[in-house]
């Protein structure tokens, strides 16, 4: 039990090592990078939604803050990209804490409304502050450099993002199986029971909300540097919904479900491109199918079927 081999993580590493050699061209490598980025955002979001039982309908807004911090600060103020990324994460964390604290003190699910509103406000701000952000057209992002070396090309980005993903999976697994993680799952399972054993419920909800928001912000920064361009679509409401959908389809409260959900829903629009104009309809139909036949998500359903927990 204690020294159990982390098979899931090993499989993830194996896949990540194989992808560059089987990807036929840079289109597929680019797709793999986007999948990995989404997987990390979804991992953070799943800690909030699946494990702690809270919701965020504005996560793309946090992503947008990170992306634009990385775009605006180096361009207009000559900041180092890493410093800009840190600043984005800090702003996101403070904003998330500021919004979450009063909301979590209320009984009932006001968080959905609050995060929805917050995401929309961030998106509108990014569109309107055109002198800084380029408005609806977006703006180019300076390249990321580490230790004086510029990160260049899909291959370099791939290995950096793959390493980040492995770390994110490992850290999430560790977090879930720790006193902090158990407190999160307990307040989801029974809020009053977790309170009477001493869990400060508001504090934990705020912590995990801030953590997942900061996660999204950092990934927003990474995306911005990787693509070399940001637009307000990063912070779009539909992007938030897409992220929540990845959590639900992959499987709530499942680390590997997060990965599967992100991979599938990142690939699906590409695979449906042949439907020309109808892809959104087919996309919707597939999602409905998932909700009807696999309401718990892909990974938890399969895990239950083959009699094996994660």
């Amino acid at each position, binding site marked *: 039990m204690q020294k159990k081999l982390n098979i899931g993580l090993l499989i993830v590493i194996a896949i990540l090592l194989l992808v560059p050699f089987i990807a036929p061209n840079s289109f597929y490598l680019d797709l793999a990078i986007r999948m990995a980025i989404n997987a990390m955002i979804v991992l953070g979001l799943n800690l909030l939604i699946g494990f702690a039982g809270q919701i965020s309908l504005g996560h793309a807004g946090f992503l947008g803050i990170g992306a634009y911090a990385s775009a605006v600060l180096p361009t207009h103020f000559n900041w180092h990209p890493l410093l800009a990324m840190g600043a984005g994460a800090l702003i996101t964390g403070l904003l998330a804490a500021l919004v979450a604290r009063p909301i979590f003190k209320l009984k009932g699910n006001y968080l959905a409304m609050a995060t929805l509103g917050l995401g929309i406000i961030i998106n509108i701000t990014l569109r309107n502050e055109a002198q800084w952000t380029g408005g609806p057209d977006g703006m180019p992002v300076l390249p990321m450099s580490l230790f004086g070396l510029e990160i260049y090309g899909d291959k370099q980005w791939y290995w950096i993002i793959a390493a980040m993903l492995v770390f994110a999976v490992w*850290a999430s697994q560790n977090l879930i199986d720790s*006193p902090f993680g158990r*407190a999160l799952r307990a307040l989801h*399972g029974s809020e009053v029971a*977790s309170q009477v*054993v001493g*869990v400060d419920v508001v504090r934990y909800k705020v912590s995990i909300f801030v953590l997942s928001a900061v996660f999204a912000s950092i990934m927003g920064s990474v995306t911005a540097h990787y693509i070399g361009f940001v637009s307000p679509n990063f912070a779009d409401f539909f992007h938030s919904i897409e992220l929540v959908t990845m959590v639900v389809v992959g499987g709530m*409260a499942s680390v590997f479900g997060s990965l599967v959900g992100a991979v599938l829903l990142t690939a699906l629009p590409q695979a449906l491109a042949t439907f020309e104009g109808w892809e959104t309809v087919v996309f919707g139909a597939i999602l409905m199918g998932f909700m009807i036949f696999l309401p718990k998500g892909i990974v938890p359903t399969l895990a239950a079927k083959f009699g094996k927990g994660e």
Partner: protein
Amino acid sequence: MALLEVKDLSIHFGGVKAVQNVSFSIDAGIVYSVIGPNGAGKTTLFNLITGVYKPTTGEIRLDGEAIHGKSPNELAERGMARTFQNLQICMNMTAVENVMVGAHLRLDRNLFKAAFRLPALRRRDAEVREEAIQLMQFVGLEAYVNERADAMPYGALKRLEIARALAMKPRIIFLDEPAAGLNPKETIEVDHLVRKVADAGITVVLVEHDMKMVMNLSDRILVLDYGKKLAEGTGEEIRNNPDVIAAYLGTHA
């Protein structure tokens, strides 16, 4: 000095006076039972003392310190544990994890240490896991250690709540109908379990409808009726109290 003192405690929900001017005190190390007909305010009284509800008026003191108005997690820090009449088990976790949650305050809850899997934190977690398994043996659930809570029978879950409360290493434990819904055999097991808990030096406050169990276990008994204190005393005194006989036990008792 008494471990727990309750003075003139009341709570009103709109016009309903669920608990009215109830006063009593509980000495350390005893089994103290609260009985009364359905709707008498027993669970409400538990919810008041354990911080789930805030009293309208009155005082509650634990070891001399005023604790009314404090939140449940603050009371947990002061050694107060409880179980629930309607089960409050975390069905999304395994049985042993439920018990480990009880040790929450005794563990390092740091997020970053957890994410980086620091050895000290892992070691402590492994110790607490062992402790939790021992507690499950103590309550007779050794067969369910790695079972998912939602796959366990009702009677086992009742005892799992007790194990979780014990994992807090409490000074005082509030058991809200631990035998409710159990068959006679299981009731006797819970009866023995409560005795073992008391023998371990933990002050037990019990709400229970099973009179045999109450009379068997209790050092003192408080009788509530319509939110008011009707009587208080030893089992013998309560059995012979004419008010109690009339209001609760029935004229044949």
